[in-house]
């Protein structure tokens, strides 16, 4: 389980200290989508950076199981991100010189998986997001929705325990946004922890729980549950017909 205790982040600037995160304690449940909500400047991005091990806290701890991530040297933190975390960013952040397949194979390659095996596994993962036919295309040849699905496939390539999604639908139209969100819900159903950072209240409404940040503090926790019934997620497919904004996106499991 991913959890944070007494987490603080203060940036020292010439103009004075900036308290990006004043205090944060929470345990993120596996198998659930947890949305982190808040207005700009509320501390969402600093929190994500600390939880994901991109940055180290000024105080407090981030635990994955019984490992305090923030105490690990950078080399081991990199290894932990590689094995246990997956990332989906708002602007996709695909490697522009790599094809879709090579992007998905990147974490596998970094983990030392042999070329033939990583290509095979990357193809399988691309097939799961319905983009096998686009495997050899460079990112600029893909639509926004396709790029985000490639990013999702890359996040899942190493079978991580936690997937972080930072405004994953922010650059997408509503149809593709719904598609990606449904895929994240499916990821949670597979038993993974999904941390969804967003300022979109409607999007957060589909999460199992919502954390509201305000001025760097955890303002409220809402365990209201997902607005999309779990049964509705079971047999859907990302590979189905192009979604529309007002239609439920079918999903499928492997």
């Amino acid at each position, binding site marked *: 389980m991913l959890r944070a205790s007494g987490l603080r982040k203060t940036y020292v600037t010439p103009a004075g200290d900036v308290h990006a995160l004043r205090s944060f304690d929470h345990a993120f449940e596996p198998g659930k989508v947890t949305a982190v909500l808040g207005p700009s400047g509320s501390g969402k991005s600093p929190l994500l950076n600390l939880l994901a091990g991109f940055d180290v806290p000024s105080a407090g701890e981030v635990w994955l199981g019984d490992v305090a991530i923030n105490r690990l040297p950078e080399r081991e933190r990199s290894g932990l991100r*590689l*094995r246990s975390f997956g990332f989906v960013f708002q602007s996709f*952040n695909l490697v522009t010189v790599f094809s879709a397949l090579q992007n998905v194979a*990147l974490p596998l390659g970094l983990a030392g998986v042999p070329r033939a095996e990583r290509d095979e596994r990357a193809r399988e993962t691309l097939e799961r997001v319905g983009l096998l036919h686009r495997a050899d295309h460079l990112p600029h040849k893909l639509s926004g929705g396709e790029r985000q699905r490639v990013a999702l496939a890359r996040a899942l390539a190493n079978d991580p325990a936690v997937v972080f999604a930072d405004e994953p639908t922010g650059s997408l139209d509503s149809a593709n946004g719904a598609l990606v969100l449904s895929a994240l819900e499916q990821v949670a159903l597979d038993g993974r922890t999904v941390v969804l950072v967003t300022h979109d209240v409607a999007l957060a409404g589909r999460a199992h729980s919502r954390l509201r940040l305000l001025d760097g503090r955890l303002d409220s926790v809402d365990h209201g549950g997902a607005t999309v019934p779990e049964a509705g997620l079971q047999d859907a497919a990302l590979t189905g017909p192009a979604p529309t904004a007002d239609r439920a996106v079918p999903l499928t499991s492997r």
Partner: protein
Amino acid sequence: MIAQFAFASLTRRPLRTALTALGIAIAVGSTVVFLSLGEGLRQAFDTGLAGLGPDIQVSYGVFDTTSLSSVPQLPQRYLGAIEEEAEAYGISAITPVLLYLRGSLAAATAFMFYGIPEDTDLGRLYRDYTIVEGRDLAPARVERGDDGRVPVVGPAVVGEQTAQRGGIAVGDVLRLNPSAAFEVVGIAVADGGLLDNAILVPLEPLQAALGAEDRLSFLTLELDDPSTAGSTAEALREAYPELGFQTRSDLSSVFERAVRISDVVRLGISAIALIVGGIAVANTMLMSVFERTREFGVVRAVGARPRFLMGLVLFEAMVLALVGALAGIAVGYVGALAVNQYALDLIGLDVAAVTPRLVAFAVAVAGGVGLLSGLLPAARAARVPIAVAVARE
């Protein structure tokens, strides 16, 4: 993984990659041309020395790089003295040589005259000595008495390159000075380079023409066992302390020292081009790292260690440098051919040579340049802060 990433990045911007590699190619090419001059001189010397083939060369006084001056200093009495003791020293043959350089502002009319006894076995002095036209030096007499004004005092055998360069043919008369001329009776070739520029004439007429009847430039000694050259030269030095005895390796080391000094000078000049090439690679890599900050941040976020990015940037810099080096070696090879074409016309020698060790040196230097120029960009890539990089637009 690093290679796959690097090649994808380098081929994504082919023009920039090609221009950077071109910068290195020009730097390495100029280095190869400059250093090929030293290599060519070494080769010419090695083959020439092997062609001349004295086990020991005897001169008057201490040998140095100016000993082959045009002023003959060795009294001829030493020829007889050493001949008397030849058997005791294991000397199988002695050849007296009088060297005379007829200088000229025009290379085509500057000649090196070698006065040697006309009955000398030239095959012993010059490897694979062959007369390609006319006859050998012996007999030393010639039919013509003069060329109208200057008396013809003996025959001459001219090296093929000298003949071609000076437009000399069998039957021509070569004036040595206002009181003596030689009639060309043969054109010869031999392995190595020294005969190419030589005009062989009988010793005594040359001595007479130069007013040096009892003087020689040097003696060449052939030994029964060439491997004893060092100890024999030492024994001769004790017996004749006023003379200089140089073995082939002595001669090589003096020449090698001179060439090395010139190597350092030429390398210094080339270093400027190499530094410029290195800066080009560093600049390209720094730009590339800056442009790919977000990409590097993402790769780090996904789980790459800092040293992966460091390795990636260094690898790209090395690939640029080595591709540039290979192109540069090709450029240098063509440059060396052009230099040789010019030098052959001018002095009859191949002065430039692109040897395997020069190629290895060029590749090593380019690799070093790539490594050094990649270090700063690589360090910068490794320090990319993930949170900042992934948020960058």
